[in-house]
């Protein structure tokens, strides 16, 4: 019988990776939900952000916060540019899959060109520090990441719910023509949202750099799970994506603690299937 400490520690671990899933999925969920674009390049952007963090904070020795301050706005601009491209060519939902796949391949190649296929690790002295809470250990970086993920989710939700821009965005997504009749400029909003989504990718990438070792091929490793999280949470639902991430992360982690790690995907995805089929509404 696994001990309470083991269960508690695994629960924490699941929560943290769930937070990362949510953070990675947040931008994707927004652009899929509101812009009707399936942006595979989101993953490539996240990893580009990770590599840039590695370069700035690791190789160039910059302070990590400074690196973040550089990366996030730069990615916002990148996101705006991508959306401009999509709009200029009137790319529809399924065509966007192809275009973004092409972009992913290009970004991956650029990453491999600049940093080789070798594995790169950003070593921070504070990277693996943990706080001890009772018998449990809380790794600081992961906790920080989860806090950021939660904060961004809630902030995005609030932004969409309460601000004019947010409401305009939601109206525009539901019915662009009617919203336009009320003065909502869909194109500007789309650019803004795309920039925000890309900025979120950059933030996610920063944490990935601190927590994981990087290699270009990993871009594809996260796609399956994060896609699942995004759809499960409801497209465009910033709180939902975090909750969905937690569901999958925790179910996997607890399976690893109690049964065997290899069965983890079975449990989490069977759970997902049951939720979808049996519950009248998704999360």
């Amino acid at each position, binding site marked *: 019988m696994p001990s309470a400490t083991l269960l508690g520690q695994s629960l924490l671990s699941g929560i943290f990776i769930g937070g990362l899933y949510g953070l990675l999925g947040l931008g994707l969920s927004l652009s899929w939900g509101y812009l009707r674009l399936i942006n595979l390049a989101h993953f490539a952007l996240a990893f580009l952000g990770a590599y840039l963090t590695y370069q700035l904070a690791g190789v160039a020795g910059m302070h990590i916060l400074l690196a973040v301050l550089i990366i996030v706005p730069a990615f916002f601009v990148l996101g705006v540019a991508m959306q401009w491209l999509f709009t200029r060519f009137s790319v529809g939902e*399924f065509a966007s899959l192809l275009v973004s796949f092409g972009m992913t391949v290009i970004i991956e190649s650029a990453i491999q060109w600049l940093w080789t296929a070798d594995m790169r690790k950003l070593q921070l002295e504070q990277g693996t520090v943990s706080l001890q809470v009772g018998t449990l250990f809380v790794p600081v970086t992961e906790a920080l990441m989860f806090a950021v993920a939660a904060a961004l989710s809630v902030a995005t939700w609030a932004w969409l719910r309460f601000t004019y821009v947010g409401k305009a965005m939601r109206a525009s997504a539901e019915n662009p023509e009617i919203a336009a009749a009320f003065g909502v400029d869909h194109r500007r909003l789309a650019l803004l949202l795309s920039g925000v989504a890309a900025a979120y990718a950059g933030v996610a990438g920063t944490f990935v750099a601190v927590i994981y070792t990087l290699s270009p091929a990993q871009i594809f490793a996260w796609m399956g799970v994060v896609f699942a999280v995004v759809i499960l949470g409801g497209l465009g639902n910033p709180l939902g994506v975090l909750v969905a991430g937690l569901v999958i992360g925790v179910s996997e982690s607890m399976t690893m603690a109690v049964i065997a790690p290899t069965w983890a995907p*079975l449990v989490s995805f069977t759970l997902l299937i049951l939720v979808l089929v049996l519950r009248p509404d998704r999360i």
Partner: protein
Amino acid sequence: MRWQYRAAAFVCVAAVFAALPAFRPPAFVESFLYLVFFWVALATSWNVLSGYSGYFSFGHGAFYGTGTYATAVLATRYEIPFVWTLLAAGLMAALLGVVIGAVVFRVRRLRGELFALLTLAVTYVVATIVLNTRIDGGPGVFLSGVSPPKLYPNAGSTIYVFGVGIAFASLATAWAVQYSRLGRGLFAIHDDEDVAEVLGVPTFRFKLAALALSSFLAGVAGGIHALFVTYVTVSETFAVTVPVFVILMSVLGGARHWLGPAIGAAFITALSYAFVSGDSAVASRALVGLILILVILFLPHGVMGFAASRWRLFRPQLPEANDAAAPEQRPAAPGRAAGAVLLSCDNVRLGFRGVQALAGVSLEVREGEILGLVGPNGSGKSTLVNAISGYYRPDFGRILFAGEDLVKKDAHRIARLGVARTYQIPRPFLRLSILENVALAATFGAAALDRKAAHREAGHWLRFVGLAERSSALPSELNLHQRKFLELARALACRPRLVLLDEVLSGLTPAEITSAVALVREIRRRGTTIVFIEHNMRAVLELVDSLVVLNYGEVIAQGLPREVVRQQDVVTAYLGAAHA
């Protein structure tokens, strides 16, 4: 007659490819072409379900992987001959598909991205089971001792021929489906599944059939591929490549045409293969990405979509007016009260989460009459129509139509019995032409006509509503008035005994209303019973033989129009208490 020539040409092309090894080309030509055919098979099989019906599956990897492992395990551990393992591979994959479909297709919410998610989840589940049980267990399965039947002296050539076989089998299937009843139903499902069901398309069965075909073909392709790679591992087989690439290939080539995915598959495979020089591997990969982007930016509907729009290849034309035999005329029933009861609702109740939309509705519709159904907004008129036509299932009560209780029936069966409806906001199938929209109803409705007869019937009804000149246009090119008439034509092409017209006059100009009213009269004259939901009281009083008034889900009055409108509670319901 033409399709026989096309079929012969198809078989010839397949034979040429199959005979290629006899010309002793370098082995790599066979290897490379095999890869192309492999992806053609996978992409085409995916498209049969997902491209045609719009149910985008992220789970093609599960079917392909099932087939791969079926062959791998049966051929090595049980020493079953290769060809039989292929059959097993296809059947097992199809079984998996049917089980998934049987569960998922019944649940109305699970469409669009939720279906994609579900199929993705199934892939993970299957992969994990394979990895953790004796099927693979970890070390992978090595097919070194397995040899295919000796079609050619060279095993590689034989595998190539199998590849040709499955590719052309997939293409033939996709082609046959596209031009069959199944295909037309799938395309309708793509555009608007609920409307398709109500028009008589057996959506559940059709989706299941498409999924079964799709997964069978993918399973067989997987089985053949097991022999090609010789060493089968879970991480390679269930990688995210297969699900993503089949989507990319189909979208690139055009997902609405049977040849589209093949074009996309050939293009992408050739592209990945073209740049394999060791020198500039990384730059080549970037170039591949760039080319993909450029192609789709300039051909947003895929290659076949571009071809179709440029050359207007695939729009059936309206058959000539004179050879259209007029549809059977039912004897014009006398106007009032003389007909037998055709439809009766008996205490029908239907609630949605706290709102009781129908609170015990009972009414009768007699054969040959026009029954008006009126009431304030929110009184339950459209809900009643939805209940009768089968979109909603009442919680309680009976709806008898020609002696049968409709309550427990699927909507498509109700359509077959002879019930048709129009929608308040027209819901045409946007990607089908006007003619195809109406022909679909003729094919799947009570009339159940074959393709040629359906087109004739459609032509007839389009002439009836005055849309004959626009028959090859798309619905988006019509204005509201025309779309309403399209709705009408579509409903009538089913040759229904009862047609439910849901606010067919709303949004029309007075002149248009007049012509619409005339049409409605003509419809009744030809023998169809009509339930006429309207707000326009002038038209109602002109047309209807008897009037039912609904309020808050209950019938508050039923009878002759002139009398009903003077009733106290009717006036109160409409105009408020002060006017009583």
